[in-house]
């Protein structure tokens, strides 16, 4: 509990981190209270109210099929964060043990695993993601699975690098001498000391996942209408942008920026918090 209080106090002293935290809280509010906060149904088309500019009735205007953009942005928070957080959570849960094993046991299997990861990472992320999603079927869960697969090597690599620098330290040798099993050494002694870079990476990856999800939907390789999703909403407005109808694409794009920004700011805060050179007090 004191750790959380300490971290909160740390954030409160840093304006950038505070902005990130407030933005994150806003998103949590949007997710939990979406039906209350929305003024219209997010998926009901109203052809009469097509392409209305922002007004007191439609705060952010309406899109070409007359759906209320503000309500769709609120509901889209659920979809976008669900996909991104799930993808990163899966990548973390799978990638961390792999990184731990690969760093701890150094044999042909671990070098092979690393070569495979090198290889996955040498593909252009967006191109591979686009191809995989369109082959597997354009479902929300497929987008999440594909993103998870693309992120697993990132976490495995980060953990492995930490494990390699920790495995020959005296406290590990001490644990081994006192009869600790490999499993105990890995999970009780190495893992807690190797997690910090990965925790920072979680926040960064969620931001990247939001951008990738939005990009995939934008080109039609992600979720489909009428699902409220930020990238898809920008795409719906892209045809009208040239005619000067700016509100259809502007607001969902702004939502993406603020969401990604919140995770980037929090990643910076977490990194600084765990930095051993930081002065306490």
């Amino acid at each position, binding site marked *: 509990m004191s750790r959380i209080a300490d971290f909160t106090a740390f954030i409160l002293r840093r304006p950038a981190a505070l902005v990130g935290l407030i933005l994150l809280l806003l998103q949590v509010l949007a997710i939990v209270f979406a039906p209350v906060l929305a003024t219209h149904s997010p998926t009901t088309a109203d052809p009469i109210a097509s392409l209305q500019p922002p007004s007191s009735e439609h705060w952010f205007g309406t899109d070409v099929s007359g759906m209320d953009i503000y309500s769709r942005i609120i509901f889209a928070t659920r979809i976008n964060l669900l996909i991104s957080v799930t993808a990163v959570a899966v990548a973390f849960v799978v990638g961390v043990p792999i990184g731990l094993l690969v760093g701890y046991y150094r044999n042909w299997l671990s070098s092979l695993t690393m070569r495979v990861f090198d290889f996955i990472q040498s593909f252009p992320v967006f191109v591979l993601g686009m191809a995989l999603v369109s*082959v597997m079927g354009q479902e929300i869960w497929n987008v999440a699975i594909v993103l998870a697969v693309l992120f697993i090597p990132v976490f495995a690599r980060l953990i492995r690098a930490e494990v390699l620098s920790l495995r020959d330290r005296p406290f590990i040798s001490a644990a081994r001498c006192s009869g600790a099993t490999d499993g105990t050494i890995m999970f009780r002694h190495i893992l807690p000391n190797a997690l910090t870079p990965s925790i920072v990476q979680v926040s960064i990856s969620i931001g990247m996942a939001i951008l990738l999800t*939005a990009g995939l939907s934008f*080109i039609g390789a992600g979720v489909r209408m009428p699902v409220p999703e930020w*990238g898809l909403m920008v795409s719906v407005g892209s045809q009208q942008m040239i005619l000067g109808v700016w509100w259809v694409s502007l607001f969902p794009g702004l939502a993406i920026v603020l969401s990604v920004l919140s995770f980037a700011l929090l990643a910076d805060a977490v990194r600084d918090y765990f930095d051993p050179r930081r002065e306490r007090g």
Partner: protein
Amino acid sequence: MPLFDLWRRLPRPLRIVLSRLPMIVPQMLGVIFVTFMLVRLLPGDPTLLMLGNMATPESIANLREQLGLNGSLWQQFVHYMGNVVQGDLGISLFTSNPVATDLMERAPATLELIFYSMLLTLVFAVSVAVIAVVRPRGFTDYASRFYGLAAGAIPDFWVGLLLIFFLFSLAGIAPAPFGRIDPLLEAPPAVTGFYTFDSLIAGDFQALASSFGRLLLPVLTLTIVNAGALMKMTKTTFADIWRSDFIRHQRASGLPERVIIRNALRNSLPPIITLVGFLIGFLLGAAVLVETIFSWGGLGQYAVQAVINSDYPALQGFVLVASAFILLVYLVVDILYELADPRIQV
């Protein structure tokens, strides 16, 4: 060991190239394997998915033959690899052309876009980083911090749309965001495939102006999104070197500021080279989005059409060519990295 002696006597650049080159073979094999597996990941029978419910047994058999889906998985892979090596990437279901021909036709458009974006990204990111480090706490320093934070959070497709809105629809400065050249002008005769180079070769300055104009918005889009990462990294590397002893010594010896900056930049080169290679891969993905917005008619737009039309041979071909291209870029980057850092043993 005469062979070893011979190796040692080769010039260093040649040794670097020769030691790197064989690595490309297993990597290319891997790329071919992944693109091969891509279509096998399709749930259900790909021929049924592509032909729909109206398929006759004959057309299914034809397509199976055409896609190389007969025989064991191993036989299929050998068959596919044989085709790829001969430059046969299958027939696009949508354009009915050989995929290799389609891709070759469209590649210059994408390469031209990436070329100018990378150029502008480099110039912009490196100059901002240098100014920010040389004049700390100045305007550029603060602006670059804000930009570095924001650039990573902005979706490229959204930036493209905003630029269209502000520069074309509102201000009317930028030319129309469709295609690579004014439709009333004729494209210059293809020599390099780059419209800007070709129109210069042909001496057609109207086409030159038009193709540069059309490049403006997409290149600006890619640069705004891309330059942030490079700027941040250059700033960190350059700042470290700027504070190092040898720079302090140069300053104490009375070298002019310009020369010191150049020397410091020379030493920050290796990480910049690595990131540039990585960014070219990123640009290829971003080009998919940006080309769609600007109807660019390059590889990216072709890939999006393939996705929308479930044109799997075309998609497969695109992934293969894009990945092979990236591998080549990484190879060149690795070689340049070792050339730029004389401390690396070959």
